């Protein structure tokens, strides 16, 4: 009896490891992280008067009009009303930058704008100001389908990002795909694993009790697998962001989202 039970247990463990390298998620099976959340957390996101990320949008509206840098220019001085000029913009990021000849994400674009056009110093990674402007811009794409990665010049960067997503790394020897392609229908301790479609960044994360960009979320994931996280300006970080966004192409932006 006892022996049989032990064999049964061994069989189960092997089966769960063997589940390993499955295929990418079929387009019609893709789900936003929103659909994995508890109803209470969904309600917090869907009501703008209760969504704490809207505080960042509010700050962003203020910063948008604030003059900065040697050029003494505000975002609004060039771009006017963000609700019109920024409509759909975030759905295309990370996007190809002609001068740098590589993709830049939304936060990097905001900082390039500051340096190039406002002649101001870049805002610190994950600063309240940068996430506020990011939230304001991303908010204007709510409901628009993600289009990032369509530019042919981005193809090699998307491919690099995919390679990083599939590559096992860290002390736990896990690739992103091991959780988010192969086991998204399961749970890790109390948390849903989810499919890793970045539909709502920057997000208000309950764990953080504040805002964070996709880069911050990726760093958390990498720390979770005991891997050395990429830095915000590492090319790998942007390539991974780009692959994730292109993988979610066609899904609706829901920024600024709430996540557990």
């Amino acid at each position, binding site marked *: 009896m006892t022996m049989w039970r032990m064999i049964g247990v061994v069989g189960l463990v092997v089966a769960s490891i063997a589940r390993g390298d499955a295929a990418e998620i079929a387009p019609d099976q893709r789900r936003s992280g929103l659909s994995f959340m508890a109803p209470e957390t969904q309600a917090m996101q869907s009501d703008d*008067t*209760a969504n*704490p990320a*809207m*505080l960042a949008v509010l700050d962003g509206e*203020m910063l948008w009009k604030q003059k900065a840098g040697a050029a003494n220019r505000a975002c609004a001085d060039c771009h006017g009303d963000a609700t019109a000029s920024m409509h759909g913009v975030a759905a295309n990021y990370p996007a190809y930058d002609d001068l740098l000849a590589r993709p830049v994400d939304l936060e990097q674009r905001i900082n390039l704008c500051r340096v190039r056009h406002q002649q101001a110093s870049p805002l610190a990674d994950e600063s*309240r100001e940068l996430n506020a402007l990011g939230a304001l811009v991303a908010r204007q794409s709510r409901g628009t389908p993600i289009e990032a990665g369509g530019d042919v010049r981005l193809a090699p960067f998307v491919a690099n990002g995919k390679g990083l997503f599939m590559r096992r790394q860290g002390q736990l020897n896990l690739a992103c795909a091991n959780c988010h392609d192969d086991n998204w229908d399961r749970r890790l301790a109390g948390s849903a694993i989810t499919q890793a479609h970045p539909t709502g960044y920057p997000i208000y994360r309950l764990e953080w*009790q*504040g805002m964070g960009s996709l880069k911050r979320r990726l760093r958390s994931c990498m720390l979770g697998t005991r891997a050395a996280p990429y830095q915000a300006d590492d090319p790998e970080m942007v390539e991974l962001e780009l692959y994730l966004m292109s993988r979610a192409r066609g899904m609706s932006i829901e920024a600024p989202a709430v996540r557990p």
Partner: protein
Amino acid sequence: MASALINVPATAKHGDIVEIKTLMSHIMETGFRHTETGAVVPRNIITDFSCRYNGVEVFRAELFPAFSANPFLAFFTVATESGTLEFRWAGDNGFS
């Protein structure tokens, strides 16, 4: 840079019970956390909230460290007359 989101219906009929929702940006540092070197991170929370309707208090709250960051409060009031709703948050380090 403190921001508040306040939601009140712009119009209501006399006698309607209307819901008021407020979100205030604040870290709500509990005072129970420690730094890596073991020092206590000092408490920094909002302790008091009130809502006055044409000068009359209709709702008041006392907040403790168990309130989440960026405190959210939703409550009700009877729309008695046209006028002004005044919200006040006060707390540690002279926050108001």
